[in-house]
């Protein structure tokens, strides 16, 4: 089947030397295949090599302690594996399991199509049990986002959304590089396929609701 635009873009990123995404190192081998590993494990030769993208979901779902990872872009990807992928189609499928939706977001970003949504707008759109999340105050939002989204221990995405329509930064507690799509949020300073956050995730909305409820 013909390669999709997304797969061709992924090939271009590999050629450009974007050799990492989040905590994953992507090695492009001479025979056109790819080898993935946890960036911390890149030098290890003693690891089991899984072949095929279908293993990615299981590896992405649980951390080193076998706890469920509700946020795949949290910096707690499990260690101790390598994965061999036969072509760009498989590479894309695997990365879509490890970091769901992130390739598509970066592809849209590169094409100037990635629409961001202010935090307040996301909250105001909620219904049902999440409706009250919109009652979170500015100070509480600043604190919550600064804590919940931080790259060390929270989430490895670069935040592109603003807190409101007038462009307030998401949190004064976060360093400027948290909003820079070119920055390696994993802290190693490598050229990376960035993990972009174009709109607050459901987990952050749920936390905002929790903050509002706790304050009542």
């Amino acid at each position, binding site marked *: 089947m*013909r390669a999709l635009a997304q797969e061709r873009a992924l090939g271009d990123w590999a050629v450009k030397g974007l050799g990492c995404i989040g905590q994953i190192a992507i090695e492009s081998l001479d025979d056109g295949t790819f080898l993935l590993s946890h960036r911390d494990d890149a030098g290890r030769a003693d690891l089991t090599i899984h072949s095929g993208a279908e293993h990615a979901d299981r590896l992405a779902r649980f951390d080193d302690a076998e706890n*469920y990872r509700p946020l795949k*872009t949290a910096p707690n990807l499990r260690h101790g594996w390598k994965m061999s992928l036969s072509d760009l189609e498989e590479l894309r499928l695997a990365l879509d399991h490890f970091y769901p939706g992130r390739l*598509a977001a970066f592809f849209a970003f590169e094409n100037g199509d990635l629409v961001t949504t202010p935090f307040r707008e996301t909250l105001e759109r909620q219904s049902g049990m999440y409706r009250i999340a919109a009652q979170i105050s500015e100070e509480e939002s600043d604190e919550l986002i600064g804590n919940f989204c931080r790259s060390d221990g929270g989430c490895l995405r670069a935040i592109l959304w603003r807190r409101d329509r007038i462009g307030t930064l998401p949190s004064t507690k976060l360093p400027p590089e948290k909003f820079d799509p070119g920055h390696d949020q994993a802290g190693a300073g490598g050229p990376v396929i960035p993990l972009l956050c174009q*709109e607050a995730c*459901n987990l952050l909305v749920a936390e905002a609701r929790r903050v509002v409820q706790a304050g009542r």
Partner: protein
Amino acid sequence: MENSLDTALLIVGHGSTVNPFSSMPTLMHATTIRQRHIFADVACCFWKEEPSLRDALFFFRDPAIREVCVVPNFISEGYFTRTVIPRELELSGPETGRANGQVWKYCEPVGNHESMTGYLLERAREVAPGVPEREATLLIVAHGTSLNDNSAIAAKLQAEKIRQRGLYAAVLNLYMEEPPLISDWLNLTETRNVVVVPFFISDGLHSYEDIPVLLGLETAQARAESGAQEIQGRSLFYSTAIGTDSRFADVIIEQAMAQRKQVSQSVS
């Protein structure tokens, strides 16, 4: 099956921030469908997991993809299919045109499909092989009392359809949180053999923990799913959630194809 290589498929699931098994059937069905090469691209998105429904707005950015079929992997119509999915995916009706010329078609939830009755029956036969249906009661169990869906009504409808076929001694729809209650099953059934099929999309806490407890099973026992469990002189056969059935992949495809046809008929 006709190929639709200008069409992509988006399967929408609920997902969970606490239950690792919630999204697995949806992902599994997506893999199955992808391997059949019927669609140009196949993706999933979830309300409570990544990728989110909002993320899905940026999927399928390939000029060859002209149509996207959105199939909710839900048991019934309800709050999610009527409110959350259209809002998050910015769907304005059965057909929504996008700025890039793509048309997104909103399909019926899988649980609405007419083949569901047949699958429930097949599932029941598979967990209780060799048990004569005439001497057994079939329980279709659902959540009940939920503002979020109409799964109780859907289960009731399925029980009625199966009852009309006259195969089982009795067919009952029972619920976790409203009468007729699952926990009352011993009083509500008369046959020695009782077959239970959870009318759920995934094996989550409900089908692994809550329902077995309501039935009086050890949860580990229910999970092992090895033939009959003996309780107070009855033989209880417990199935996994109907949504884990590999045949659900076919239903997802059929829901997508049905919507394509319907829309093209209404246009021509």
